[in-house]
């Protein structure tokens, strides 16, 4: 297959469509973890609101004073929430890493896409992907530390300087740089995992090195497809926000409609995540095939000589 953007996107969309059954696994896992983080809050809300008339003002609109008071009354519980979110998200991330092995495996061998094949891939690649995850987290942390230091540097440079606009522009550029670098780390991490699985290798750092070479040679294709899929995800969010604003807050049964819409967005986001990996597997397969073709033709030339 010629690795044009269109071909990659069409083939990847087909691959995702053929493996849509896995989306329910991802969705279910996501919902279970979100539920774990919602139940403590629900208990607090029940305690605070189930007999209170203030609830009606919250159903129809938002009561900011209630929000301030609720945050103050349950301060100790709410202060713990970020830690709980981090702990649960850490476990969720490990499970996602586990699922990712299966997902890449079924995209690699489209005919072997039963749940047994999926979990076989999950088990087989989990440890390798875990190493990539650790490297990625270190790199993300480094990026955020770098971002902090850049912020300090900008503050230092603008002490005693009244040029607000210049400071705002430079600070914005700092965030754009952060976003770009996060994107790069994500791409490197994703392609390393794809490469580890497809080439069936285990050495993470040497794989990162070869992925960097691969990305350098095919940067435009890789970056453009990554950007396209990401923008597709962003379009979904925009459409959701537009539709959600149209749903009235009463009568109460519109709550169900809003919930259905929210879950559609969550499923769409999971679909986009599958689409990312599908495009990455297809691009990687094409690029490696091209390399192989070049090698073979070189060999033939040598024989002819």
């Amino acid at each position, binding site marked *: 297959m010629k690795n044009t953007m269109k071909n990659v996107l069409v083939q990847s969309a087909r691959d995702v469509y053929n493996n849509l059954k896995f989306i329910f696994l991802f969705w279910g896992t*996501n*919902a279970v*973890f*979100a539920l774990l*983080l*919602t139940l403590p*809050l*629900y208990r607090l*809300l*029940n305690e*605070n*609101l*189930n*007999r*209170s008339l*203030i*609830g009606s003002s*919250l*159903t129809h609109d*938002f009561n*900011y*004073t*209630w929000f*301030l*008071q*609720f*945050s103050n009354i349950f301060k100790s519980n709410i202060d713990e929430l*970020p830690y709980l*979110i981090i702990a649960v*998200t850490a476990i*969720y*991330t*490990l499970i*996602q890493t586990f699922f990712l092995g299966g997902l890449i495996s079924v995209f690699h061998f489209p005919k072997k896409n039963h749940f047994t094949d999926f979990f076989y891939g999950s088990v087989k690649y989990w440890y390798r992907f875990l190493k990539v995850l650790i490297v*990625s*987290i270190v790199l*993300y942390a480094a990026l955020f530390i770098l971002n*902090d230091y850049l912020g300090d540097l900008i503050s230092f440079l603008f*002490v*005693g*300087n009244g*040029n607000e*606009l210049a400071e*705002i522009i430079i*600070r914005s550029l700092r*965030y754009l740089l952060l*976003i770009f670098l*996060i994107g790069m780390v994500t791409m490197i*991490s994703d392609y390393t995992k794809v490469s580890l699985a497809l080439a069936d290798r285990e050495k993470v750092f040497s794989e990162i090195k070869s992925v960097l070479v691969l990305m350098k040679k095919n940067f435009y294709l890789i970056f453009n497809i990554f950007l396209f899929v*990401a923008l597709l*995800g*962003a379009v979904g969010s925009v459409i959701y926000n537009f539709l959600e*604003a149209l749903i009235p807050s009463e009568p109460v049964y519109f*709550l169900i409609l809003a*919930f259905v819409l*929210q879950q559609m*967005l*969550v499923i769409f*986001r999971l679909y986009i*995540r599958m689409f990312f990996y599908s495009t990455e597997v297809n691009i990687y397969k094409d690029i490696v095939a091209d390399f192989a073709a070049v090698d073979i033709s070189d060999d033939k030339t040598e024989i002819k000589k």
Partner: protein
Amino acid sequence: MKIFAFILLLLYSTLSITENIDEIIPPSKNLGKETQSGKIHKTTTVATENRDSIKIHFFIQPEHERHIERLKKICSLTLKFLSKNIGKYPYSDLSVVDIPKNIQTAESLNANAIVFDADYFLAKQSYEFEISIASKIASIYFGNIVKNISSDDAWLNYGLSRYIAHKVVEKNYPLQMNTFHLAGYLPIYGITFLSYNEIPIIYTLRYFDVPLESSSLKKYYENINSVPIAGNNSDALNKEELEVKNVHKPYLFMLSLDRYSGENNTLGIISEYYKQSLVSPVGKDGFIDILLKTTPTKYEFNRYALSALNTADKFDYAVDSLTAIGDNEFQIIASRKEAGVFPVEIFAYTEKDTLKFRWDGKSVHKKIIFQSNEKVIAAELDPRHKNIFDLNYANNSFMLEPDYTTSVSVAIRWFFWIQNAIIIIGSVG
């Protein structure tokens, strides 16, 4: 995904900047002239209630030139309000000077001048800027013209000024909407629940109206055990506690007074305090004296006023239960959860009617038995939230039948935010 959620937010914010901020006024010859210090100088004239005209000189930094219409509006409205309700503005002009953020000058050296700093971007329906300017102008009355007896009385200046600013904005501006700052400076309408380093992680982009007193309430809740309003400044443990003692608590107290005794009575008390202080400074004792003499239903409210001003007592009243105790007979049990005492009204809502009771709020519990042929729905105390220091309005009411709709509705929304957050954060794997 996380990157693009952030890009989306950034794009949204960039697009909405044009909505959020006032129209940018291009520099033009008739707008003003640049002074030697690089500031834009513009003058406007305000005719007050007494038909006096006051010239306002604006010295604005060029990058804040777009805020000039907002400045003109709030300065004119505040001067008119003060002249009408408190007393005549004693000067012929007012200077409004915009200072760079990096200059640590909080107060003006001239009696008829105010200094301020402003953010580069101001959200159209967020009024902290207006509140700040109006407070500073009112402070000319209560801090410059009238002198405090001691620095411990600074709350009279700051608290009364902020209350005046609240009234000016409340009367002349649409509802305030909540904003959060993206990357530290871009105001976005909505609420952020979880963020890292100015990067919002769990947030919602919507227009949420937010009462003008919210920022003061937030600071009060954060410093709930701060020094009493009429206490000594030296007792405050830190700068924030001192600010709560001198600015936010007295302002909230004045709002409570406003809700309890009405705006006219409250402004009358302030005006009387101002007039007496012009003759000779009366300080906090003079102010409290005027307050106690002037407020209607004196006895009950005075107990609250003295408690709110002289002690750090907290306030929380609750309806603990509403039960049917016989045929057409119902019982309300209300309680005072904290030491602070406030006279409260208790309403019992039936399908067709509202029954009203009064409670002086002194006892720890109050039992009310009433009869009604109608179906009783709920009981509520202080329904108009007159006691602004009440820590929990949610327990002010009690429904006969529980309703889980709201908790489910809020929990579902939270569930969705969490689903998205863990997709975004979890995608690092």
